[in-house]
């Protein structure tokens, strides 16, 4: 083994240029892999984090659009009934016993927090123009526990909302469109035509356009007044779990407890998750292509080396090296190329990632972002080096096996 190592070393060092070229192939492959994975997973994590901070792990609501059994089926259950264009029943999205349900859910040890809310579409009046948006009635302190609102406040304090009866905290995007700031008053109109003047006590920024540009928070009682509903009128319960990946398992349990639809975040954000999967597929397919190209480079160079070293292989075999020993010599060479090449690739990948993370990038209204988010997770560096070494091992195996099978007599006889 030691002898094979020293022969392999001598082979590699006697042709430094060729060795370097082979290594560079791997280096580029791995370097690009690291940079791409860093950027892609960085973007994924960033958007996931944003989504997670603004949406609950489990969302319980009254799904009034769901199909209900038709009257015809109740009257004639055994017949074949076709009802086209079933009209929805007049039904409020109210959750009955919402506060009791919330209490039950809060007692579950897997739950970090649960907040009852009610929301409605509203128009924000700006002179003659009406901007479409939503208003969420929340217990602001409870909501803060779930979404860490305090850290997202751009002006005002969340306690100010608690203290006022007609205050709202408005998304920065919406405030900018309305040209209002903290302390200003804004007139809202509900779809039912109720109009009310509210005072802006603060602004927040989640970082996602779909939230910042349309949403305001108000106290539950304020929204109940706007909607002209009673004190028990709650339309949604937002739940945060200790482990968000359990949402899919826990949601059906809550659905059974509450009797209302409980939607986990993966279902709610399925389009976003599809995007993540597609980005991952892209990253890996490009990286694998790069590595396969590098692998072919190594295959070629080793093949050439072995062709040039046929005499040496024959003499080694005559002197008592078995096929396995010869294979070892060339496998060591390809693994050394793979390992050093990958290691250099990790370094280059790191610097590339670093450069990308410093590149200015304007996320526009949609995402508040000024630099590319890059992931420096060591996991991907480990994957990179394992990947690189594995590719070179495969690429080196075939020529090495050929060398081990070489018949020394043919060469020695000339």
């Amino acid at each position, binding site marked *: 083994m*030691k*002898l094979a190592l020293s*022969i392999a070393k*001598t*082979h590699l*060092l*006697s042709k430094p240029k060729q060795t370097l070229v082979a290594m560079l192939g791997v280096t580029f492959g791995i370097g690009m892999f690291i940079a791409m994975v860093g950027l892609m997973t960085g973007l994924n994590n960033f958007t996931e984090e944003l989504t997670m901070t603004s949406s609950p792990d489990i969302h319980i609501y009254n799904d009034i659009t769901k199909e209900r059994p038709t009257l015809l089926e109740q009257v004639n259950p055994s017949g074949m009934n076709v009802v086209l264009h079933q009209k929805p029943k007049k039904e409020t999205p109210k959750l009955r016993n919402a506060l009791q349900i919330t209490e039950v859910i809060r007692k579950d040890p897997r739950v970090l927090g649960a907040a009852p809310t009610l929301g409605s579409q509203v128009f924000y009046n700006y002179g003659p123009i009406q901007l479409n948006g939503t208003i969420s009635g929340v217990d602001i302190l409870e909501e803060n526990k779930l979404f860490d609102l305090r850290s997202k406040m751009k002006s005002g304090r969340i306690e100010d909302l608690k203290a006022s009866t007609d205050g709202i905290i408005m998304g920065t995007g919406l405030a900018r469109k309305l040209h209002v700031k903290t302390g200003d008053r804004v007139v809202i109109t509900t779809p039912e035509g109720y109009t009310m003047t509210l005072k802006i006590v603060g602004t927040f920024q989640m970082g996602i356009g779909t939230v910042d540009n349309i949403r305001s928070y108000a106290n539950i009682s304020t929204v109940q007044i706007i909607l002209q509903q009673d004190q028990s009128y709650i339309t949604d319960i937002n739940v945060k779990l200790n482990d968000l990946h359990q949402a899919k398992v826990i949601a059906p349990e809550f659905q059974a407890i509450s009797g209302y639809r409980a939607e986990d975040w993966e279902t709610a954000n399925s389009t976003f998750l599809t995007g993540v999967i597609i980005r991952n597929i892209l990253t890996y397919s490009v990286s694998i292509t790069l590595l396969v190209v590098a692998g072919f480079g190594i295959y070629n160079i080793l093949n050439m080396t072995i062709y040039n070293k046929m*005499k*040496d292989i*024959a*003499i*080694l*075999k*005559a*002197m*008592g*090296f*078995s*096929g*396995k*020993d010869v294979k070892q010599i060339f496998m060591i060479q390809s693994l050394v190329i793979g390992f050093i090449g990958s290691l250099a690739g990790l370094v280059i990948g790191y610097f590339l990632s670093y450069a990308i993370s410093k590149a200015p990038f304007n996320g526009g209204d949609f995402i508040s972002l000024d630099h590319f988010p890059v992931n420096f997770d060591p996991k991907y560096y480990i994957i990179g080096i394992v990947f690189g070494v594995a590719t070179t091992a495969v690429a080196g195996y075939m020529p090495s096996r050929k060398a081990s099978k070489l018949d*020394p*007599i043919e060469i*020695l*006889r*000339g």
Partner: protein
Amino acid sequence: MEQVLRTHKITKYFYDPEKFQVLKEIDLAVNRGEFLSLVGKSGCGKSTLMYVLSTMDTDYEGELEISGERLTGKTQNELAKFRNEHIGFVFQFHYLLPEFTAIQNVMIPALKLAKYNYKEVEDRAYEKLKMLGMQDFALKRSNKLSGGQQQRVAIARGIINDPDIIMGDEPTGNLDSYNSQLVFDIFRELTHTYRQTIIAVTHDVEFARNSDRVVEMSDGKIVSSSSTQLAKPALT
């Protein structure tokens, strides 16, 4: 007299381009310390016989025994190990590993055998080089040496593990007369002083005539086997 190599009815065929019997029931016995030349016209099968005797060619019928060990039917790996310990090679075209120094080349078979540690192997290799007058070139890259020098290093490599037999395939075939004589003298000394056994395939009439025993082959058969007048002057 101790026999170091013995064959029994060795027969071999070539199948390409058509079936052809290249060795016909060869019976050969070689004594320890014998300097044997294998001669014959091109195509008579002498090289083929040597590669069978050297255990590298296993595609034959009959039996081969070296140092009392029956080698017919052993696996390639077993034979490789056996060659490493018991057989040394000297080829026409030296076949040193060009990237290594002279002493490294000599050391490789001994490091492979791993009977001695690195330091001991180095000392032994140096000793062998000294025996062949190559000690001053020990640290030179082998591709920087002349043909004669390379062949002497190759001989040192062939004897590093104190093999039972040294096999030579035209060991002087590529050398000028001065170096041929040098190599011959080394062989002579190895056999007579160190009781080394040598089997050499050669075209060199002078070389053959001066060895202990000449085995002549023709059409795959041994046609004559005679001791020369120079045989064993020390023993007669």
